[in-house]
């Protein structure tokens, strides 16, 4: 078994030891060539990744989740070949939207599971724990790889950072494979098509006023409890 970690930034580094616990781990990132990003990849090596691939093109900064998913899927095919042999587990983080992992899975026609809390191996199957919507339980799912798992709760894992000297050592010894879109058979114009599907920032939108979230206020905790019970999140007996 082997793992491929989709590394979108430093916040995703806790995915690397999860991958290493499954097998030989490759890291794939869509990041520009900057010292900061090289440091992140060096940290991934320090956590046990045996191979780091960084792919970048400026068109990636303006495409949407689907453009990113297409690109990652193409890069995964090139980097890993047959995902069934050896069986490959692709790990992605949540990053608030949770869109890229499922998109990669769809492009590669793999099963995916979101909001995964932990991963283990049982014989030749991967067992993923996923919080249930209700009733205070964790559900257990098992399947043979290949698969995509989107890991939630990365904050629970605190990977150590490598020092800059260690990072430089890693980079000198192993290096990062730097790819372009051409390396994975995608053109910038293909990604540009998805530009109009990408939500734009307030600055990009100019004169439009963004909404501001406000919580729904309940007059009392008892009213809140009724709502949480209707949501199926709290025992109707009120815990008594």
């Amino acid at each position, binding site marked *: 078994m082997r793992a491929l970690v989709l590394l979108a930034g430093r916040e995703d580094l806790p995915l690397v030891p999860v991958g290493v616990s499954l097998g030989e781990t490759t890291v794939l990132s869509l990041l520009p060539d900057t010292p900061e990003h090289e440091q992140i990849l060096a940290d991934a090596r320090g956590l046990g990744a045996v191979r780091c691939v960084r792919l970048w093109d400026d068109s990636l900064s303006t495409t949407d*989740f*689907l453009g990113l*998913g297409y690109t990652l899927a193409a890069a995964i095919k090139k980097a890993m070949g047959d995902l069934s042999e050896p069986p490959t587990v692709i790990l992605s983080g949540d990053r*608030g939207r*949770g*869109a890229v992992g*499922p*998109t990669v899975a769809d492009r590669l026609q793999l099963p*995916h*599971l*979101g*909001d995964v809390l932990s991963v283990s191996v049982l014989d030749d199957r991967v067992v993923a*724990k996923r*919080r*249930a*919507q*209700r*009733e*205070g*339980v*964790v559900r*257990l*799912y*098992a*399947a043979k790889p290949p698969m995509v798992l989107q890991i939630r*709760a990365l*904050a*629970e894992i605190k990977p150590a950072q490598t020092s800059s000297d260690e990072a430089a050592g890693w980079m000198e010894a192993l290096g990062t494979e730097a790819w372009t879109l051409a390396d994975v058979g995608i053109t910038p114009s293909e990604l540009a098509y998805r530009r*109009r*599907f*990408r*939500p*734009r*920032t*307030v600055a990009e*939108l100019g004169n*439009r006023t*963004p*909404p*501001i*979230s406000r*919580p*729904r*206020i*309940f007059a*009392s*905790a*008892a009213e*809140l*409890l009724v*709502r*949480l019970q*209707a*949501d*199926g999140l*709290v*025992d109707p007996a*009120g*815990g*008594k």
Partner: protein
Amino acid sequence: MANIICVVELHHHRVLPVSLEVLGQARRIATALGASLYAVVPVAHAPKAGEDTFIDDLAQHGADKVILLTDEGAQADGQPDRTDTLRWGSYGPALCAVADALPPMLLLVGATLGGRDLAPRVAARLGAAYLSEAWIELEGSALSLWEGSGDAARGLDGDLEFPVVATIPPGRYAASKGDEEVEVELVQLPAHPADFEELGWEADAAGRAMVVGESAASLAAALHGTATMQGAGAPALCVSLGPSIGHLPSEVRVGLGDGAGGDVHYAVAGSIVDAEAALRQAIGTSAKEQS
């Protein structure tokens, strides 16, 4: 005529409040734009007598038509409420088939655990734009679509000539009113192999504390089991209400009225101290303060 599809989740044969809220906002938009509103309900089996009151609820809250996606072969042993495992692998392809038959301008789902799993891949399959924890608003006769809040918000611009898939957080919109009757269509999922075997469940010990946090950040930390509160006075606000209360996943963030940040879904009015005491009293469990 344009179509709007709302994916509806049930809990013990009752519609989740967030689904009624999503349906309510969709009703207002459908009325303004002259669109048809479809409520698509993944259910384990066709409802028996006494189990179908949710259909009346959906009619009374604005659905033009209810489509029941039934999966008779997927009922797992020991799982009384199959929709608890709503996710892409259970109902996603069937939902996409409905969307192919009724091409939607909007496909909306509550930002629940199941909705978060389902929606991005449906968006990918449809080639749609995707918004997480979205705002679906009307500005005049045009849609105004955002995700996020304030300066961190991001919006879709211009005339939308493509479908949009969005998750909507609980508490954002009010439910709506509709007719007393609704057309119902039953769609039986074709036989499909399970992508994951469901092995069962175990108690979620880490997630069973109900926590009231001073801020969304402290609340999120506590909900993830790293209950290290930051800031003066914060530890006193982190209240564990015991293992019998139930599980409060981070999909729903709860805060206090005066201190709740913008990314909190529900809050209790009043001062912090009063709210904490009231919450303890309402749940009726001896609370234990965490430090």
